[in-house]
């Protein structure tokens, strides 16, 4: 009994030692996560509208964009930006883009493509009668889209969006390959240094904590947007 408590307190002390490094890694993870959503959520909309546009070049452009970013691995896109595109920009312009910004740009562009497809699905799920009612009341196409269709789309895209958000929080681990010091990189550093896998367990708990928060948030939002929509209606 005595040795058990002794070992437990030793482990807890070790976890306490690990925490500052892991938490500062987690902070980078959260930053990347929030900033990616901040850019990708709005950026998806023009591509969603574009891929339904009557103007052929816009449609073509949007669909190609979505195809490229959904059709290649995110890791490959990270490498492409990190080793090719960003160094080119840094060399030829006065901009100096660092690893974190490179990760942010890649993630935003990638997730915008997924959000665009979610928005497109949401827009297409709205009944044709809504467009007809709007048209018969003399609303323009723009008024119809922004006043009638998109507000109804919000509720329908919330579940797939929160699903993507949960994927995103875990995808942030990928950026350790271009040496951004996020949670997984900090964890691996500790494991290698101490030859002790405890840090992996802590990291898993931190990721789980984040997804728990996201699940609660999406549940709250879904409830908020359900006031005009009853199940089965």
């Amino acid at each position, binding site marked *: 009994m005595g040795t058990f408590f002794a070992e437990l307190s030793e482990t807890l002390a070790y976890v306490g030692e690990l925490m500052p490094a892991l938490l500062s890694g987690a902070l980078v993870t959260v930053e990347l996560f929030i900033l990616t959503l901040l850019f990708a959520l709005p950026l998806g909309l023009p591509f969603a509208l574009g891929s339904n546009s009557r103007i052929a070049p816009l449609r073509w452009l949007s669909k190609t964009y979505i195809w490229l970013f959904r059709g290649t691995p995110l890791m490959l896109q990270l490498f492409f930006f990190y080793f090719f595109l960003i160094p080119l920009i840094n060399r030829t312009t006065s901009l100096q883009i660092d690893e974190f910004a490179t990760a942010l740009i890649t993630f935003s562009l990638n997730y915008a493509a997924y959000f665009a497809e979610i928005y497109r699905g949401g827009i297409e799920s709205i009944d044709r*009668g*809504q467009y007809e*009612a709007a048209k018969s009341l003399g*609303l323009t196409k723009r008024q119809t889209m922004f006043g009638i269709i998109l507000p109804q789309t919000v509720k329908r895209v919330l579940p797939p969006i929160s699903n993507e958000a949960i994927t995103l929080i875990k995808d942030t681990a990928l950026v350790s390959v271009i040496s951004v010091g996020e949670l997984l990189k900090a964890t691996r550093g500790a494991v290698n240094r101490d030859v002790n896998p405890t840090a992996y367990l802590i990291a898993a708990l931190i990721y789980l904590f984040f997804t728990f928060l996201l699940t609660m948030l999406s549940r709250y939002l879904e409830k908020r947007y359900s006031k*005009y929509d009853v199940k089965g209606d």
Partner: protein
Amino acid sequence: MAILEMTGIVKQFKTCRALDGVDFAVEAGETVAIIGPSGSGKSTLLRCVNCLEKITSGKIIIDGDTLVDTNNEGKAVYPSEKEIRRICLETGMIFQHFNLFPHMSCIENICYAPIKVRGKTKEEAMATAKDLLEMVGLADKAEAYPVQLSGGQKQRVAIARGLAMEPSILLFDEPTSALDPELTGEILKVIRDLANLKRTMIIVTHEMAFARDVADRIVFMDEGKIVENGTPQAVLSESQNPRIRQFLQRFHDVGQGLQN
């Protein structure tokens, strides 16, 4: 002068000819009911009036403005989208499935277009909307969302929404077909009140008794053509056209079946 004039209307869908040379006119203040079997082109005709469908050839004049005319090659030519929108503002459509905006309360449903399209102030639009809700007997439902209403109440809000745009012609596309039979009465009453106010209305309906009572004129359509066009008496009772007799027989049988 006719407020709506349609001449030689042809509507060709990919595989079928929904309208096959229809001539149709409505005088201001008139209530016209369009009846006929399913697929006869009644709804399509109505939808061509406010441009939900574009015709293949023919001519439509609404309140003196030409919505569409046919060129020398026999193709229908429409003006710009803006012009179409302006002309079609003279028409208001009431749909079979109401098509209320579910994310807006009843009063927001009614006010949205008058504010955005007619440029009314919020106060003006709200005042009109309240009067209209009062008229359709739903003054207490102003803040309710469509999901909280019965089908009959939804349709009455939809009528109020249509009226709020002050159209010259009201188009009803089977306004009671999606309702439980016991709810149709409240809609028919509102339409009857509007007829008494001499609103110009075109009503596509399967309610024969209602058409007979409320319409000044009945149009019977079959296979994309107008077969008969006259007073309710002339079309429903006196016409010897075999298609009409056959069509009305069905309603007659149902009535008898209930009595026996």
